[in-house]
């Protein structure tokens, strides 16, 4: 298989415009002859479904939640980047492009990232027109703030609820199309298989989560906007229902999975408090604009603190180590997420961590409160401080927050070309579900940008090119391909229900999460990864022998839902380990202990690993086949990433 990224020829700045002119168009009167399925209704899915409807296509949209408004994009806090340069501080499309490629540790496709930066400006216009209440200055114009990994203020925000406001904007556009009858919405409906006819994606098999009924839907193209796979780790900042099943089952039907080991561990999360913990809560990275990260200078002080012999306020200024400011004077507390997370792990590994577990560092607002006053800080971060207080029962205005890194975002995902189409004709992947724009590390406020860029401004053009070359004929869901896929899904669910073992699904999920966190988390090494692969295989065998799933398929059955999702995580986890083991370098969120500079920074190997690793499924328990897409850098010089 040769991976063709279909990057248009020509100058970087002209590629997208030229491509938009060169793609084939579907006549407005013919659009109604095409059906498109969109799975997932977060930013990437809702924006695409709404825009397809506006263009005149017939759309079916699916989500597992009870309403499209609940997709996990809603939880994004900090903001959305756009190269508007409203602040007159030197921003430009090229600078946003450059920052994103560099932030991704030179493992993203130049052409995709440039296009992302180009359309970023349209996103803000669109959202404002929809009534998204972004933060504003007293003059009535839009406000901006800065975010990690950038030295300009290009982030638009709506208090600490930017994702919510953007998603409700996309949801309103989607609702308008539902009302017009152009989009048919299927909430509480989960995709369990992709259906291919003559080598093309022609539909999906779904489970109605209320009745348990297995149903099929056919279309001319299928768009997966199903988010990321961070819940492989069990504990993450993802929603409880976030899962990889739709993408993974498409992978098992032949879609390549790219860079699965690129996982983003977010530096500012609330630490784990006990083994009952069900998820981790993120505190927006924007907190690092004013909060100072530190730990005690010595192990001895940290130990006395953990034992409760002293409190944080007893530690003298001279005994505090503001390690990010010390090591990275230029960026200070605003280094990118991978750098901040790795450094938190380093100081905790040195025994200087705080909190009862020693797995936390301080994020201190005392200086900011002294400088700006408590009301100013409350105006900026009030809802985040409240959330912290609710969860920890501690007042962050009086003592520093305790934070620790947690799994947050997955840069890997289904391989797509420049048109966002996977290697399966007619199957697209957008938003976090694809691999394309963030390389090995995503910068803050870039996920919302990518999801909406893909959905509003990229795929509406590129899908037309494919459909224009597709006959109008519909495939009936009575086609044997649908019947076979349905039978497979039913058989798998029945198998899960019939095992009647002794261990719960959560039990297995937690065990998998622990393996992943310990050996394929913030730091990895070859020996650990090899061990993890064996452990995952053992766990997977045990799962299929000993899991306990109660009830039947034909009902609302949350245990069964969890079971089939975890069954897929148990396969995907192994692929993540394979990918991490094969990539003999460190880059962004993938840190291999064997490959680091004397200062513990990630050491890339551009000569041998400047490629996208796209894996082909060959059967559970078989070794996947690696396909490489070489990354060419013609506009950015590859250098050791430095934030000093």
């Amino acid at each position: 298989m040769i991976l063709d990224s279909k990057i248009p020829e020509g100058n970087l700045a002209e590629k997208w415009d030229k491509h938009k002119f060169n793609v084939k168009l579907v006549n407005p009167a013919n659009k109604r002859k095409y059906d498109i399925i969109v799975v997932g209704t977060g930013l990437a899915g809702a924006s695409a479904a709404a825009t397809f409807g506006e263009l005149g296509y017939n759309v079916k949209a699916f989500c597992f939640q009870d309403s499209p408004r609940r997709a996990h994009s809603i939880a994004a806090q900090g903001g959305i980047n756009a190269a508007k340069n409203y602040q007159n501080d030197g921003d430009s499309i090229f600078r946003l492009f450059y920052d994103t490629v560099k932030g991704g540790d030179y493992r993203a496709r130049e052409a995709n990232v440039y296009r992302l930066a180009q359309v970023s400006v349209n996103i803000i216009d669109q959202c404002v027109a929809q009534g998204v209440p972004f933060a504003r200055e007293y003059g009535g114009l839009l406000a901006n703030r800065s975010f990690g990994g950038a030295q300009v203020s290009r982030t638009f925000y709506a208090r600490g609820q930017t994702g919510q406001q953007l998603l409700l904007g996309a949801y309103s556009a989607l609702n308008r199309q539902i009302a017009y009858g152009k989009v048919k919405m299927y909430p509480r409906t989960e995709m369990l298989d992709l259906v291919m006819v003559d080598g093309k994606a022609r539909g999906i098999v779904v489970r109605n989560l209320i009745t348990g009924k297995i149903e099929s839907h056919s279309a001319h193209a299928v768009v997966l906007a199903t988010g990321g796979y961070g819940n492989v780790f069990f504990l993450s900042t993802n929603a409880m229902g976030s899962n990889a099943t739709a993408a993974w089952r498409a992978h098992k039907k032949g879609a390549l999975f790219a860079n699965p080991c690129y996982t983003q561990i977010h530096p500012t999360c609330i630490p784990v408090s006990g083994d009952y913990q069900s998820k981790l809560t993120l505190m927006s990275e924007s907190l690092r604009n004013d909060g100072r990260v530190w730990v005690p200078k010595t192990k001895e002080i940290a130990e006395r603190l953990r034992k409760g012999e002293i409190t944080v306020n007893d530690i003298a200024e001279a005994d505090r180590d503001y390690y990010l400011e010390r090591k990275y004077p230029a960026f200070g507390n605003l280094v990118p997420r991978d750098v901040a997370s790795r450094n938190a792990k380093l100081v905790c590994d040195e025994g200087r961590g705080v909190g009862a577990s020693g797995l936390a560092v301080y994020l201190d607002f005392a200086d900011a409160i002294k400088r700006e006053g408590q009301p100013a800080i409350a105006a900026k971060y009030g809802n985040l401080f409240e959330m912290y207080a609710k969860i920890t029962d501690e007042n962050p205005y009086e003592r520093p927050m305790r934070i620790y890194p947690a799994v947050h975002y997955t840069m890997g995902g289904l391989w797509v070309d420049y048109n966002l189409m996977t290697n399966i004709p007619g199957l697209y992947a957008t938003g976090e579900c694809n691999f394309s724009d963030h390389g090995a590390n995503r910068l803050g406020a870039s996920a919302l940008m990518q999801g909406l860029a893909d959905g509003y401004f990229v795929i509406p053009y590129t899908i037309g090119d494919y459909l224009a070359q597709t006959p109008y004929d519909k495939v009936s869901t009575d086609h044997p391909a649908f019947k076979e896929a349905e039978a497979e899904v039913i058989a798998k669910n029945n198998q899960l229900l019939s095992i009647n073992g002794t261990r719960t699904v959560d039990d297995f999920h937690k065990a998998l999460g622990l393996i992943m966190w310990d050996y394929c988390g913030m730091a990895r090494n070859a020996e650990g990864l090899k061990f993890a692969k064996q452990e995952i295989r053992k766990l997977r065998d045990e799962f299929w022998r000993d899991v306990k799933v109660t009830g039947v398929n034909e009902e609302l059955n949350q245990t069964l839902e969890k079971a089939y999702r975890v069954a897929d995580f148990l396969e995907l986890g192994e692929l993540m380990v394979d990918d991490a083991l094969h990539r003999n370098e460190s880059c962004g969120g993938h840190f291999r202990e064997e490959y680091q500079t004397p200062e513990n920074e990630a050491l890339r190997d551009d000569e041998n690993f400047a490629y996208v690793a796209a894996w082909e499924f060959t059967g559970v328990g078989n070794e996947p086949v690696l396909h490489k897409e070489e990354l060419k850098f013609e506009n950015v010089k590859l250098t050791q990433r430095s934030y000093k």
Partner: protein
Amino acid sequence: MAGSNPNAKPMDLTLKVWRQKDRNSAGSMVTYPVVGISPDMSFLEMLDVLNEDLLRKGEEPIAFDHDCREGICGMCSLFINGRAHGPERGTTTCQLHMRHFSHGDTITIEPWRAAAFPVHKDLIVDRSAFDRIQQAGGYISVNTGGVPDANEIPIPKSIADKAFDAATCIGCGACVAACKNASAMLFVSAKVSQMAMLPQGKTERKTRAENMVAQMDIEGFGACSNTGACAAECPVGISLENIAMLNREYLGARLTSENLA
């Protein structure tokens, strides 16, 4: 590993939980003892612990809606001791922690109770009526593309902030559950007033108010009698002022109706 309060003692509690097989079956309260609950657990984590126990015994776990567990997606619900989202003000159930309960407590847990929110199973209700109300007019009719530059529409900060306050509604349904009439006025008013305040939303303000209210009535929500229970129980603090604004918007729209039907 201890949390923020290492001295807090684990609690034993008695739960009375609404169990209902499906929409068409009758339900009943079932009593479950739970032991060794950490005060640092969230309410839903406490239910996770109970469900794991039930599963190990081969019993069916309690079905409840939840997703982000950060208080923003609006998926979680639960009527706890007669209060929507439990005893803490301004808190969703997922953000409610067990430190607000005491050893020996009996806690009753019911689904949202409203004719417009039929029970799917146990504590899970059908809130699709909310989506249909939004589909009736909770949007500004702009297509993707062809919109003016974002800064061409200056909006006074005070207006933007007020619109934001209304826009933070998470659509959980607590307002309906808290209201003795099961009225959806707070939910509807939040969207109507957000968009009526913003210049972008003014064009369609009349049809929006009329159509959303009409859909609310079709769905079978009750009338508003201004008791304010909705705003008191709203986890994100949506203000009663929005209802006043909706009344004004609706009256104005009816008097000069643009609906041709």
